């Protein structure tokens, strides 16, 4: 009964979203203000019913109703309640419902927080979001309802959630990722509304920007959490695999980052308008493309949901309709936004242009490399596999170039600046930073690893550029404190954001270049030394939980004579799902992680172990958090909170 009510609520939400998609557009063309005013209540209704539907699904999971196929597939009576709930987004159907709920949540937020915007523009923005919601709700109701029953053979118990997914990282990772993905629907809706209404000025950008920044923050956090989860939960210490599904989230991030920067030009200088529109459309298109790749089974991946051709074709149809409609609209209406933006080649605009070109190139290259295994055979070129080395070879140099230009860009003023004002200090700094980087690398590793040197040069480069920028703003003058306070949050957002990128680069470079690992055989009392750490195995014990039993090794780590920590790696047997999982024992410090995983049981009660010392890993997580903080600072800027901007 509860499941049927859930489906009913979903159908009600569908009706609301169809009305939301239709009424305001009719209202806009016919100038009926009462129809325009319908947008907000429809957005509210759509959200309320999706929330009811989602809560009913939660209820069905918590009460272990295994007559519902999705529950039987994802859950089990022995799961703790929090994994029962997170099991909802562990599979295709439930995660679609979460996707919809979040989309409706963003729509509601736009409806509630846009009092200062012109009514007709908000109504059209909401209508566009309604169209997206309607399309995906239709898809969910007809091909992916999580409320489907199994009759007559109701299983006595569920199949249990995939043990990989029984983890805090996975409770958080998909919702964050969807918040980011779906959040770009707002930027998309703003772009379409601009094309429909013909209104696109710097005020438009001022409204669209905070939404885009928020979506970007969530996407950054989602990708970071995914990487962190892979790092400690997969058990072997990898953190990025260039897996198609990872790429599917990275591509919108790259293009979305370009969009964020291009919006800055649109807001400050009323420039790059056409380009901003195109980026907003493409960011969302890449979100849909990612959804299509993940859920159609067209690319084989560890993450991919079960293969179902009908679903794939339907999502493809939605993707193409969206693209053709929005790009058609673009071809028809965007020429009116043609502009003559004049700026000096040495001003900030030039560097934002470079930023955009590099980021979009990166996005397109990652997309092409991801799709190449599909493209090649069709062109009759045989079969290819694209591995991580290819991605790294293309991605890393462009990223380094991007950071190099970033050092100039963040220093320059809008419109009229000249590179000359900063060129000399920066050019003098360059050899110094190179020398410093060489020295630091040598002190750290006693060898000269050029990739490490490069990452340090980039870090010092950005550090110096940030200091120079603060100096130009008078921070180091006598009344520096005042100057510090005068700067808007978005200024700090910019500096912090760039710092975050550099931290991630440093963490990634150091761990790739300096990590050491060793596969060893160990029994109670044996010890091994690695990178100055002594790993001493005390004993084994058996640990039990409600749905797994584990062999656990108790291992003490010493540095010289000093006790460092005790690690407890486990080999867990999830007996219901019938899967064995490696739980690594990890101790994390800012400068290094100790990472021990249990391999397989050997003779005489010994086990094989993999011992790893991984330098600077937390820099990556810290950098990601700083990126998110930077995005939030940008959103907090006072100019977005003034309600009286328009008129």
């Amino acid at each position, binding site marked *: 009964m509860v499941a049927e009510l859930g489906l009913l609520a979903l159908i009600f939400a569908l009706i609301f979203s169809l009305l939301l998609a239709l009424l305001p557009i009719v209202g806009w063309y016919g100038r009926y203000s009462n129809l325009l005013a319908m947008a907000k209540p429809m957005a509210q209704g759509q959200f309320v019913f999706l929330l009811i539907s989602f809560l009913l699904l939660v209820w069905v999971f918590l009460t272990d109703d295994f007559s519902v196929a999705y529950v039987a597939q994802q859950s089990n009576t022995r799961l703790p309640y929090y994994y029962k709930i997170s099991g909802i987004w562990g599979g295709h159907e439930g995660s679609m419902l979460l996707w919809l709920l979040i989309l409706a949540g963003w729509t509601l937020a736009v409806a509630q927080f846009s009092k200062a915007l012109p009514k007709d523009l908000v109504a059209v923005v909401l209508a566009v979001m309604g169209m997206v919601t309607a399309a995906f709700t239709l898809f969910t109701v007809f091909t992916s309802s999580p409320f489907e029953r199994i009759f007559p053979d109701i299983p006595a118990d569920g199949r249990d959630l995939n043990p990989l997914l029984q983890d805090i990282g996975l409770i958080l990772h998909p919702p964050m990722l969807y918040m980011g993905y779906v959040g770009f629907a707002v930027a998309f809706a703003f772009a379409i509304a601009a094309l429909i209404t013909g209104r696109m000025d710097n005020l438009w950008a001022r409204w669209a920007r905070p939404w885009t920044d928020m979506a970007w923050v969530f996407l950054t956090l989602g990708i970071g959490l995914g990487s962190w989860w892979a790092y400690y939960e997969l058990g072997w210490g990898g953190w990025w695999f260039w897996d198609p599904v990872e790429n599917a989230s990275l591509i919108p991030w790259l293009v979305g980052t370009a969009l964020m920067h291009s919006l800055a030009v649109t807001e400050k200088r009323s420039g790059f308008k056409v380009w901003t529109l195109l980026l907003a459309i493409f960011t969302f298109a890449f979100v849909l493309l990612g959804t299509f790749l993940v859920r159609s089974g067209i690319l084989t991946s560890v993450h991919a949901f079960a293969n179902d051709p009908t679903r794939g074709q339907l999502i*493809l149809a939605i993707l*193409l309709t969206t693209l*053709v409609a929005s790009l058609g609209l673009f*071809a028809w209406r965007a020429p009116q936004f043609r502009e003559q933006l004049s700026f000096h080649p040495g001003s900030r605009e030039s560097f934002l242009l470079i930023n955009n070109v590099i980021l979009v190139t990166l996005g397109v290259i990652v997309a092409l490399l991801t799709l190449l295994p599909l493209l090649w055979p069709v062109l009759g070129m045989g*079969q290819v596999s694209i591995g991580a080395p290819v991605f790294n070879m293309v991605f890393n140099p462009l990223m380094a170039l991007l950071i190099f230009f970033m050092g100039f860009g963040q220093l320059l003023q809008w419109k009229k600046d000249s590179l000359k004002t900063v060129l000399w200090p920066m050019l003098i700094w360059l050899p110094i930073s190179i020398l410093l980087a060489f020295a630091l690398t040598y002190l750290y590793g006693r060898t000269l690893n050029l990739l490490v040197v490069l990452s340090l040069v980039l870090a010092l480069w950005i550090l110096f550029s940030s200091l120079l920028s603060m100096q130009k703003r008078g921070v180091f003058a006598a009344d520096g404190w005042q100057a510090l306070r005068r700067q808007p949050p978005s200024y700090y957002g910019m500096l912090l954001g760039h710092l975050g990128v550099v931290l991630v680069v440093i963490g990634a470079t150091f761990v790739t270049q300096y990590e050491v690992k060793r596969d060893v055989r160990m029994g109670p009392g044996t010890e091994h030394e690695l990178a100055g750490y002594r790993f001493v195995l005390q004993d084994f014990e058996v640990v039990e939980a409600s749905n797994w039993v584990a062999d656990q090794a108790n291992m003490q780590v010493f540095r010289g004579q000093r006790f460092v920590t005790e690690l407890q790696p486990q*080999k867990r047997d999830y007996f219901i799902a019938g899967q064995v999982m490696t739980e690594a024992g990890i101790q994390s410090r800012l400068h290094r992680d100790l990472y021990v995983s249990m391999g*397989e049981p050997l003779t005489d009660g010994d086990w094989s172990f993999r011992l790893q010392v991984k330098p600077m890993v937390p820099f990556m997580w810290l950098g990601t958090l700083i990126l998110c903080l930077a995005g939030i600072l940008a959103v907090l800027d006072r100019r977005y909170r003034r309600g009286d901007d328009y008129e």
Partner: protein
Amino acid sequence: MNRALFAIPLLLAIAMGSFFFYVMRSGIDIEALKSPLLGKPLPSNQLATIEFSGTRDPSSLHEQGPFLLNVWGTWCPACFDEHPVLNRLAQEGVRIIGLNYQDDLAAAQRWLIELHNPYEVNLIDADGQYGFDLGVYGAPETFFVNADGLLVHRQVGEFTMEMWRNELQSIWESML
């Protein structure tokens, strides 16, 4: 800026869309992928085995006769579905070598105990390096290698008993 330029994104999108539809509709999906290694020997490498029987080189396994190299992993649901078919083939005397791809060793051992072991021997490719050399797209994949050590056919994705009877068996028998 010419007005026509604004239509370029639209044309690109339509081209991309038709491409995806073509891929999904036509037979050129991942199941029919050919391998650049067809007619060539397997890449040489020393791989450890799940059975702890020392290392083996896939490029010299043909010395004991033609075989199927089946790429599998416990993380792969389609491999689970395919496994009974492999058991059946092994009973019928087909020589099957396993390549345990990007997997957890303990999980793989357990899988073989619980689901029966149709493989003569299982090579370990924990980091996927050998799979990369082989051009593995995902699991399961099955490479048909003849008595001269040359790759005759590549089956991407799961195959059923029916597919074996209809097309694959004749390929296998032609290699004997």
